[in-house]
């Protein structure tokens, strides 16, 4: 469904991504693991159209080329990004944030059923629908961000460090919700530091190192891989 080939990106002289290639199949959950500065966020931003990759990069979604398209058009193609730091509209209410999630033409006519799903997934958001988002806790804001992304009716949902800064209990709930989103048939592409949690809901994983993809395998194999254990699991939990 998503095919990335030879994705390169540089900021000035700094090479952030060096000929990265990856694939996400329909309904597949894929995790990208790697240390800080490995280029994981840059990768998601390039796919979402927020940063423009170097020439020679191919990114296609459902066989259509999306590389170089502005971010608001990538949303229309069916890719939603929950950015690092959540990117919610803090001065607007939960309800307004969700309504804006369905701003894309592809989503507008389905706004009601999407909202029902989001409220079913996160009942807390329904209770607090009139609250301003910047008065909510980090975990609740993350729900708003994910809910808003789901409102755009994506076929692929990308999440950049969704568990960052959240309490362990909240992280557990978050991954439970991601599991339910996955059951709905959405493809997920997740960048995470929390290796155990993310691999537990994933089908496959890629290892990112210094702007390159250094390996990939099934989630099960990665969980049992001694090198991965040493590189990531020891460092986190």
């Amino acid at each position: 469904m998503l095919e990335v080939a030879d994705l390169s990106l540089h900021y000035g002289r700094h090479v952030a991504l060096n000929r990265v290639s990856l694939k996400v199949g329909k309904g597949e959950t894929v995790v990208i693991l790697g240390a800080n500065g490995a280029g994981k966020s840059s990768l998601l931003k390039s796919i979402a159209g927020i940063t423009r990759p170097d020439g020679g990069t191919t990114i296609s979604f459902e066989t259509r080329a999306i590389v170089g398209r502005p971010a608001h058009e990538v949303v229309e193609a069916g890719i939603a990004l929950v950015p690092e730091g959540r990117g919610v509209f803090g001065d607007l209410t939960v309800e307004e944030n969700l309504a804006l999630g369905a701003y894309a033409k592809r989503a507008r006519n389905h706004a009601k059923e999407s909202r029902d799903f989001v409220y079913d997934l996160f009942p807390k958001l329904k209770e607090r629908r009139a609250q301003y988002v910047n008065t909510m806790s980090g975990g609740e804001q993350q729900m708003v961000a994910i809910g808003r992304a789901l409102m755009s009716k994506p076929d692929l949902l990308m999440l950049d460090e969704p568990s960052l800064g959240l309490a362990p209990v909240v992280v557990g709930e978050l991954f439970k919700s991601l599991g339910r989103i996955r059951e709905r048939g959405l493809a997920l592409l997740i960048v995470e530091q929390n290796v155990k949690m993310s691999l537990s809901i994933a089908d496959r994983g890629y290892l990112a190192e210094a702007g390159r993809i250094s390996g990939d395998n099934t989630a099960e194999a990665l969980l049992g891989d001694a090198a991965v254990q040493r590189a990531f699991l020891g460092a986190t939990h």
Partner: protein
Amino acid sequence: MLVAALLSGLVLGGTYALVAMGLTLQYGISRIMNLAYGEMIIAAAFLAYVMFSGLGLNPVAGLLIAVPAGFALGYAVYGVMMSPLVKRARDKASLEIDSILATFGLLFVMQGVMLVAFGANFTSYSYLNDPVTIFGTTLAANRVLALVMAVVFGGGLYLLLTRTLWGTALRAVAVNPAAAPLVGIDVNRAARLAFAIGGGLAAAGGVVISMYQTFTATTGVVFTMKALIVVIMGGVGNLIGALSAGLILGLVETFVATYVDPGLTLAATYGIFLAVLLWRPAGLFGRVAR
């Protein structure tokens, strides 16, 4: 006298609020500090004057022409002058500086055109200059109409921005421009629309002002300044802020002119401005951290 001052203050304040709403849209959403804003107001005032004295068209009907014209002018100015600046701007601050310089130039061009066309004389016309009695005081009917029009336009804009998805999207751009594209909002298009709506509101304000005030080709600067004070006092990009700050400013100016000394009006303007900013540096309704 108290009721009279209160009513005059509301009329003036309503006008300030109306005019400031347009500027707060242009600054809050389009991120353009439009120094030629007052010239757009005065241009609309002259348009209303020409339509009234030349064509016999009353200002209320004139709005139907002036507001779309203001919208179109704003749309064109953004497309021709601002788009290139937005494209080359590295960050918010550099766009702000560039737009200040560009609109500063536009100010003089528009002012020059109006000076050539209308001269530097005070201009006014007499429309609905009949006394009406409200709460025991008499007021010119055109002032009452001015207040009604400010309420209608301000209220309409408020409903448009808060009750429609399209308006909510514009506010989203003001709140978090980096996140807006993630929900499919074309930020450049939103900025252009907001700038054009600001132009339409400037035109509405100009027509309203022309009904009860005298103006010259060079008074635009005064309105830009007043609008800017109201916008900053209310919190940049905040409609309710612009509305309340506009009313406060109008009331304070009128009360000082009535009870203290008309010569102190400007001092009162800056006094209240300073007081509000000392008390709330981000404005009445502004939030410091964004």
